């Protein structure tokens, strides 16, 4: 399982769909031999799941394999504009399952859908304080070369009921499985336990800033047999940059299919003009900032001279 951790997302998707195909060809040997990439073990499947799995069982003997389920998804807004009035934005991730075998009245988690919306990764420094002679001082730090700036997750059920940790880890689903690689240049060698503390701190602090979000319990809801929808709220302080929305279709703790959609999150109008100006011509921006401040100060005092003199 640890070996899978290093796989790239793209590769994982290929592996997942490949696995699904192979499964179909092997005439639904689903529940038992389905351990592609060795990740999820049968013992991770909650026994409850075996209940709804009964209906397909009789078809096991039939020669013709049923068509493979495939998830297709999209987002309501491909491009979110950050303007002066931006206070956050809600995006709708919706989709359908092709060849859904879900019973009409399906409410008992025949399929599970998980939607993950992730921001651009960036390097983060985590520092830890300790008590040095009565004063709390930063004594150790870890540089994570790449941490998602934003991470929102919505699912039909709590994710630990959907799949085992192996599958979640491979697909970076859930806070505990967010990819965070400590930079190789750490000066102080830390134990695995200490490193886990630093990782947990990133997640905790990001949650406090509302940048790591779990959408409420029914984050993804089904409408009928194959349609599903989910709303993800981007907060007002969401870091500007491209977002990736990943949608996973689960059946019995396995990823059947996955889909990637991209959302542009860009500054527009005056926000864009000011931001670009500040970064492209910082000297002129600085001079104008100084002039604005002086003019504002002079204007204010002149305004008040008339009133008070």
């Amino acid at each position, binding site marked *: 399982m640890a070996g899978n951790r290093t796989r790239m997302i793209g590769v994982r998707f290929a592996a997942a769909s490949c696995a699904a195909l192979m499964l179909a060809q092997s005439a639904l040997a689903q529940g038992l031999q389905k351990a592609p990439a060795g990740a999820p073990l049968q013992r991770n499947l909650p026994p409850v799941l075996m209940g709804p799995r009964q209906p397909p069982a009789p078809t096991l003997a039939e020669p013709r394999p049923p068509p493979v389920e495939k998830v297709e998804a999209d987002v309501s807004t491909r491009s979110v504009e950050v303007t002066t009035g*931006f206070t956050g934005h809600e995006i709708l991730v919706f989709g359908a399952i092709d060849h859904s075998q879900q019973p009409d009245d399906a409410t008992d988690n025949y399929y599970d859908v998980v939607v993950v919306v992730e921001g651009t990764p960036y390097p983060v*420094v985590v*520092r*830890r304080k300790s008590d040095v002679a009565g004063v709390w001082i*930063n004594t150790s730090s870890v540089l994570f070369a790449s941490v998602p700036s934003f991470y929102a997750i919505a699912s039909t059920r709590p994710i630990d009921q959907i799949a085992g940790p192996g599958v979640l880890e491979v697909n970076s689903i859930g806070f505990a499985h967010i990819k965070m690689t400590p930079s190789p240049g750490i000066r102080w060698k830390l134990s695995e336990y200490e490193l886990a503390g630093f990782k947990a*701190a990133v997640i905790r602090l990001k949650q406090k800033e509302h940048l790591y979000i779990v959408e409420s319990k029914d984050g993804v809801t089904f409408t009928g047999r194959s349609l599903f929808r989910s709303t993800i709220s981007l907060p007002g302080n969401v870091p500007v940059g491209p977002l990736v929305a990943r949608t996973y279709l689960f059946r019995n703790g396995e990823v059947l299919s996955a889909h990637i959609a991209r959302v542009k999150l860009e500054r527009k109008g005056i926000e864009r003009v*000011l*931001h670009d100006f500040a970064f492209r011509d910082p000297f002129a921006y600085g001079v104008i*900032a100084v002039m604005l401040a002086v003019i504002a100060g002079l204007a204010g*005092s002149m305004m008040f001279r008339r009133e008070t003199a």
Partner: protein
Amino acid sequence: MNIYLPIAEMSVNVAVFLGMGCAVGFLSGMFGVGGGFLLTPLLIFMGVPSAVAVGTGSMQILASSVAGGIAQYRRKNVDIKMGLVLVGGGVVGAVIGVALVRILRQIGQFDLFVSLSYVLFLGAVGGLMLIESIGTIRRARPGQPLPARKTGQHSWVHGLPFKMRFNRSKLYISAVPAALIGAFVGFMAALMGVGGGFVMVPAMIYLLRVPTSIVIGTSLFQIVFVMAATTLLQAMQNKTVDVVLALLLIVGGVVGAQLGVIAGARLKGEQLRFLLAALVLLVCLRIGWELIARPEEIYSIGPLLGVS
């Protein structure tokens, strides 16, 4: 009503930030301090990234000092000659301060050093001012006039070379201590993201014996020039000056500063000093408490910027 800030990259409530600017501006006008030692921690508390808080704070202090300085200038409370000596020292101090900031960031102890400096300076300055002002208020209470300043009084300050005549302050003293005070304040401005008025005002009163009324206008004069340089440096080096945020704070601050000058004119020098001392000590205790109290969260995260 909310507005999105282009550099801080967050959505803020306009009324709250206008009010904050107004409150800090009021104190700036009343005491002649830039208000940075209040504004910077307040902005960070409101969720503004600390680098942006420091960078933008310098722009706000600049505007509020211009407004306060003009008001003082009209009251003929600015000793321009002394102000220029302070500015000269200030520029040298700021250059040294910027160099030290880089070193402290490299070893990852910048925040600690800033907190310790705050506690040390605010504590010492606030404590001294509090004791002195209470003493003066007590002596003045029975109704006798305060003893007039003895012009013939001499201290070590008067033994230094490069004597200059500061007409407005009615002083004939060496330029060396004034330049040193200016340099020290410029050093602190770069290091702590403050104007430095809370150190400059008492230093001028107690070391140089500049009259209290002149001190406020003259210190604002110095802050204007040092903050203009700091704003430019922050915009160029760190790109942390948020013009939109600064304008919000400035609009509130300019109004507050005028009210502060009017309020300050109604109070006696020792009363002003007592109030400023109390305020400075409060901020000192708050920052000191954070250093020694067991923090709720011992971890902190930040971007890579400023580490290597």
